[in-house]
Structure formats: C-alpha cells, structure tokens
C-alpha cells in the first residue's frame, strides 16, 4: 500500500494533553491523516485521548455513527462503527471503530482526515457521472449502485482531497469501482473489487434431498419442492440459500451479475427425483449451508450481514466444452476461479460464482481443475468476502486487500476443519491448504507453508508491485501464516522466531480472535500493523492478557515480521 504521511497518535495526544479542553475550546488537531490504534495494550492516556477525539469529531458531525452492536463473543461489550463525513459527504476510507464496556472505551481503531478543504458542490450530476462510467466500462452500471458523491483522499499526495463520484460496473470479468471527478468528469482512480479465489482468475415445501458432490460424496441437501420438482432453495436455515444453474450460458450469467437479468425459479438448480447428481450444484448448495452453520455456531453470526441476508450462488456459469473457444479472461474468471461479487445480483446484495473447472484431460501448470464448488474451503472463502463487505469493508487492494483475502482464507480453513469433523464423519482430511479438493494435486495456497505456492511467509518478502490489486492474494499469506502459527505453533522460516500456538484443540480461540478483529475492530483501510493490533486486542478482550491465545497471536505476528 502506498504510504500516506501519518501523524502518530502520540503526537496527536500530546497536542490534546497540552491544550486544556472544554466544551467550547477544541484542541488543536493537526491536519492530515490520523491513524488511531489504541487498545488494552496502549497507554491509558492514549486510549482516553483517542476516545476524546472521537467524541469531539462526533460532536462536530465529522464522524457519524453508522452501526452499533453488542458483542456476541464478549458479553457487555459494545461496538460502534463511525464514518467520517465532510460537509455531509462521505470521506472514502475514513472510519473509526470504538469498543466500549459499560460506557468506557476499550479500544479505538481507524483513520480520520483532518483539515479537508474541498467544495462539496458537484459540477456534474449523478446521471452525467453514470454515463461517464458506462463509457469507461462499456457496461450499463448497476441499477442498484447509482454514482454517489464521496470525498476521495489522494493516494499519493498528503492533504489533497477531491470531490468525486464513486460508481461500480461489472464488465464481465471485473467488478470495477470508478472514481470520477465531480467537476471535470476525469477518471481519478479505479480498482477491481471482484473478490476472486485466486489471482486473475420450517416450511411446508422444504424437503431433504440426497446429493452426490463433486467428489461423489453423499450429502444432505435442504431443498424446496414445487410442482413435483425439487429446487435448490434452502428454507430451513434462517437465511434462505439459493443455488442457480446458469447452464453454461455466459451471456445470461453476466446479465444476472450486472443486475440486468432477473433470476427465477426456473433458473434454480433442479432435480426430478431429489437424488441430486450434479456435483457442482450439490456442493455449492450444501457448502453455503455449512458455511452459514459454521458462522452461526462458531461466532453467533447470522449470515453475511448478521441479519440473515440470503445467500446466492451461480454454478455452471460457462460450459466446459467452450474452454477452447473463449477469451483468456473468461477462462481465468469463469473456468479457473471462483469469486464473490459484492453488489452483484438482481437485488444487488452479492453473488458467489463458482467456476466450471476444466475438462479432465486438460491440465494447467500440471494441475487438474474440477468444479470449484466442490471445495468447501473455497465456498466459505467466497462467502467470507460477503462478511467483510458487510463489516470492515476492507479495501480490496494493497495490504487492506490482502487482509480481505486473508480473512476469507481464515474462514475457509475454519469451515473446513469445522465441517470435516462434524459432517463428513472423518472421511475428509481438513488442512490449511486452499482448494486442494478440486485443484489437484496441491491446491492453490497454503497457510502452513506459503512458500509451497511461491507466496511470502514473512513481511520482508511481501509483493510490492501493482499486479493483482497490489498482491492481495499473495500477500494474504503473511497474515494467513500468522493465523496458522497462532494455532499450530512452529518456527517462521525467515525470522527463525518460534511461536507457541494454542494447539489444534483450541483452534476455535484463534478463529474467534481473528473473526472479531476483522469484523468489528478493523476499518476499511487497515494495514497489517493495524491487523496485528486489532487481533491482539481481540485476544486480550476474549481470553485475557496472559492467555495462551494472546501470547500466540502476538508471537505469530512478530514471527512473520509484522510489528
């Protein structure tokens, strides 16, 4: 991530302390970017002063409360998420999370900008901006995602802000986010927000069906019967779960993702005798259900938004037989990948798409690619992007993007460990490798040994280029490896530092530590250092200062070079 000039919280706090505060006299706060990172491990004065700053900015209406929720893992704790606004216009990437206990601050994380000087009256209308974005993307922009005004901090220059329109457009292979200058119409910035699996790439009609997954393993499916047919619609879980079979129709798939085409019952995966044989449909449907169960049972979370938003996936977005006649970008996205499109779908709430894989006789890099839905860790990984979208909304580039990917890997691995023991009777072997069930031999990423796939296992080896949104996938293995070390323990290959993990029997502790840090403590532009602080804070909150979990998390981050 580009380094923004930053003022340390200490500098800020010094200023706060040296100037008497009162209801009328505000402390002099330096302009620029302020990164707040104060928790149980910080000096008490730092936490108090960070809390005071948030209060002051809230009184100024610079910070607005956008979410407030209790803590399902630590009773008595409250979490606030505050978004910064400038003259009523949202400041992109500027938000704060504050944890309190009985009204007293426990931690404050986030980023705020001071001294913003930009006129918030646009020259262009939103319709003008939409047309510009359509011209840039070649696609009609989402009906549900009309351009909205934001204040965009310059990514390179300090204290430079622009009033821009933010708009999203699905281009068929990318979910592009465009920032168009609200005065000139010029493109200021854009990035691809498509969260891909790997780089470049009790009701009356409810019934239980039997399905054979991609690996020919028996599974129970919660489906719906309509007119004698059986549809892949799960109504038994609090969040409805839909699996749609696009039947290899790429055009239809893209229209659905763009929100232009609607989905109907006829598009659902279906079966005539409730003995399902389409492995992709079976595993996508069952995998989403199991991921829902995992999130609920491990974290008390109810679907992606914690309010039981529906889960929706598309399988067979393309036809395998077409692999030799389609463009590379289609192969990369719809054959050799799975992805989560946050604002996609008819209702704009997000869609997971699972790639088709390749014909059995076609190898890429010596690996066979089967239907991506056949790997539970991939299914859970994609849905976890939805959790991130509804919580920290980690910006999908650079370190925050790598954290976004890392969290999905954590959830993917966690779901696999959780499910293998409970649901498959030990038939499968859970591990820290992503996608090994459908990408054979090997998989695509290893949290245990990132180097196995050429990914960095230490911060000093991080990818600093611009490809892959700044290396969101490859750099995700740094926090991912820290997650592994905190559970299993071991010695980091580069640093030689040893980590005393909590042990596999206590893996749930580390999963909860990471989940809590990523969903309630971290903000959208968190970097690895912030993730370290937030996860340690989470461990302190959940298990105490001298707990094995707090020690393991601290050691793990240090071992991978994040301090």
């Amino acid at each position, binding site marked *: 991530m580009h380094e923004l000039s930053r003022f340390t919280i200490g500098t800020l706090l010094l200023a706060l302390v040296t100037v008497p505060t009162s209801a009328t006299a505000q402390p002099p706060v330096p302009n620029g970017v302020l990164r707040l990172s104060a928790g149980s491990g910080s000096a008490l004065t730092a936490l108090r002063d960070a809390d005071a700053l948030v209060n002051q900015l809230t009184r100024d209406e610079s910070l607005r409360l956008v979410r407030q929720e209790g803590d399902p893992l630590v009773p008595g704790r409250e979490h606030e998420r505050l978004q910064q606004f400038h003259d009523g216009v949202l400041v992109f990437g500027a938000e704060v999370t504050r944890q309190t206990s009985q009204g007293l601050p426990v931690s404050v994380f986030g980023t705020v900008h001071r001294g913003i000087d930009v006129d918030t009256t646009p020259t262009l209308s939103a319709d003008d901006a939409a047309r510009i974005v359509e011209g840039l993307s070649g696609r009609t922009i989402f009906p549900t995602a009309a351009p909205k005004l934001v204040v965009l901090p310059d990514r390179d220059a300090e204290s430079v802000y622009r009033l821009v329109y933010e708009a999203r457009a699905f281009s068929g292979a990318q979910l592009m986010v465009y920032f168009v200058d609200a005065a000139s119409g010029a493109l200021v910035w854009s990035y691809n927000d498509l969260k891909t699996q790997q780089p470049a790439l009790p009701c009356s009609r409810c019934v*239980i069906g039997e399905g054979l997954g991609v690996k020919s393993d028996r599974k*129970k499916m*919660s489906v719906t019967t309509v007119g004698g047919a059986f549809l892949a619609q799960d109504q*038994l879980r*609090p969040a409805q779960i839909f699996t749609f079979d696009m039947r290899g129709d790429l055009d239809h798939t893209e229209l659905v993702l763009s929100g232009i085409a609607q989905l109907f019952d006829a598009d659902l995966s279906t079966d005539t005798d409730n003995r399902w044989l389409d492995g992709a449909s079976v595993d996508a449907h069952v995998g989403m*259900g199991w991921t829902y169960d995992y999130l609920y049972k491990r974290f008390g979370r109810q679907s992606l938004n914690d309010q039981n938003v529906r889960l929706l996936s598309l399988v067979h977005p393309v036809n395998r037989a077409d692999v030799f006649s389609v463009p590379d970008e289609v192969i990369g996205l719809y054959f050799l990948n799975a992805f989560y499109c946050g604002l996609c779908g008819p209702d704009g709430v997000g869609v997971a798409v699972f790639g088709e894989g390749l014909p059995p006789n076609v190898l890429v890099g010596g690996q066979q690619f089967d239907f991506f839905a056949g790997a539970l860790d991939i299914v859970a990984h994609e849905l976890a992007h939805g959790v991130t979208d509804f919580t920290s909304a980690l910006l999908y580039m650079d370190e925050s993007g790598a954290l976004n990917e890392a969290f999905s890997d954590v959830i993917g691995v966690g779901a696999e460990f959780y499910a293998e023991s*409970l*649901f498959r*009777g030990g038939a499968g072997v859970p591990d820290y490798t992503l996608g090994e069930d459908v990408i054979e031999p090997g998989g695509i990423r290893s949290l245990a040994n990132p180097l196995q796939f050429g990914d960095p296992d230490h911060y000093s080896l991080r990818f600093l280029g611009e490809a892959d949104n700044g290396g969101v996938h490859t750099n995700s293995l740094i926090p991912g490896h820290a997650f592994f070390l905190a559970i299993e323990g071991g010695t980091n290959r580069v640093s030689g530092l040893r980590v005393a993990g909590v042990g596999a029997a206590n893996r749930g502790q580390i999963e909860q530590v990471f989940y809590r840090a990523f969903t309630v403590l971290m903000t959208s532009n968190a970097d690895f250092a912030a993730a370290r602080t937030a996860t340690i804070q989470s461990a302190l909150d959940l298990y105490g200062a001298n707990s094995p979990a707090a020690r393991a998390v601290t050691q793990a981050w240090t071992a991978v070079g994040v301090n």
Partner: protein
Amino acid sequence: MSPIRTAASTDAAGQARPRPARSPHPRSLLFAVAGLLVTAPALAQLGQLAQPAPTDRIVVRLDSGLRSASHTIADTGVFPANLEQGRFRTDYDLKDGRVVDGGASFLLWRNLAIGLDVSNYRSIHDAQIHSELPHPFFFDAPRASTAQVAGLERRDLGIHIRALWMSQVAGWLVVSVSAGPSVITARQDLVSAVQHTEVGFPFDEIVFAGQTVSAESETTAGLNAGIDIDSFFLHRLPFLRNVEVLRHVGLGLLVRYVRATAVLQSAGEPIELDLGGVQITSGVRFRF
C-alpha cells in the same frame, strides 16, 4: 412416519440381538419363600398322616391377590427420517399386579382331583423411550430425546388345568398340591411409533411430542404348579356354630407358579415376554 419395530436389545458391543424378556426379580423369590413358609406346617403334617381324602367332591374358589411380574423388557424400532433411519428404544418397567383368580375342582378318585381355573392379571406400568432422530443437514449426527410414558397396560388371561392331590389334613383343613398345563393370552401395550417436533435451526435439538401405543397380544401354552390350603372353620366359631350353611364355606390360600413365554408378533422382530412368576391369592371356598 411409518415405523418398523424390532425387538432387540443392545449388548456391550453394540450388536442388536434378541432379548430374553425375563429378568429375575427378588420379589418372585420372596413370594415363593412366603408360600413355602405358609404351607410348610401343613406339608409336614401331610407327610406324617395317611393322607385321608376329603369327603366333599367339589370345591369352588374365588380369589384375589398379587402376582410377581416385576421385570423389564426392551423393544426397539426404526423409522425412516431425513434419508436415514431414526431409532427408538423403549424400556418397559413391568410391575407386580393384581390377580383375580377363580376355579373349581372335582374329586375323581380317592385324593385325586381335577380342576380348572381362570386367572386375570393386570398391571399398569411406565416406560422410558429413548429416541434418535437423524439431522436434516448431516449424516451420522442424530439428535437424542428421552421421554417417559405412563399408563401402559399389561394383561394376562390364563386358563389353568390342574391335577390335584388333595389331603384332608384335619377336619377343617384341606391341603392340595397341583400341577398341569396352562393356556395364557398375554396382552401388552407397546410403543409402536414416536413423534418429535423440530425446534428449528440449527436443528441440534428435538422435542419429544408423543408416541403411538398399540396393544399386541399372543396366546401361548405353559405349565402351572401350586399349593392350596383350604380351611373350613367358620362353622366351628362359637358365634357361627348354628349356621349350617357355613359348613360348606371356607377361606383359602393359593400359591401358584406359572412358567410360560409369549412371543408378541409386532411389526418387527418378535418380543419374548415372560408370563411366568409366582402368584399368591386368597379368597373364599365352597365345597359340596
């Protein structure tokens, strides 16, 4: 739900095997010992005397009393649910019950008589039902429930043919030993199906909602043996001495042991039901 029931118990290795219905109960022995103690003096006297035959040819009995039947039986059933087999096991806690017993004997020759008795045994007992219902989402992840069901009925209607050796121990006391075949119709309430209510997501718990009870019956043959002690002393009491009819009325005690096994044909595997045990009854006697 269309349950298929089987009669089986589970041994330590978890293998289903036919279950012997009988489990010995101390109370049966108690009854037997009590009977022997009561009749011992008479038997001793019987051995010393020349076993004179009674003079009256017909004795009619009407008794009530208790029968030892305390033991447990188990029954299991399976039923299809959520692509797997749900299971339930019912442990019936059979109890001692009341017996009404009546009959008559006819003196054929010297001390030898033949008799025919009818007995009716009834008890009300409880049962424990242990159920396992398959999970709707996962294989091999059953949810368990336990419930108590009360008011189950067990009834045996027995016809006992007896050959009696009757001895007039004293002018007012007749002691008889008897044995013979029995025909018994056993009727037992059995849990034939269970019903549950789903609590809802995450479907980790179920609520037992009820059971279907069906009465299964079977007629079987067995053996009986017993001792009767009939006393006709009422007319000897000072204040009843002038009541002539009381020469034919007495009081008696019957200790009977029955051995029989019924096999109840349920929808699944048969259930062996032990109909045996000791019954002790007492009542009035009429002799002619």
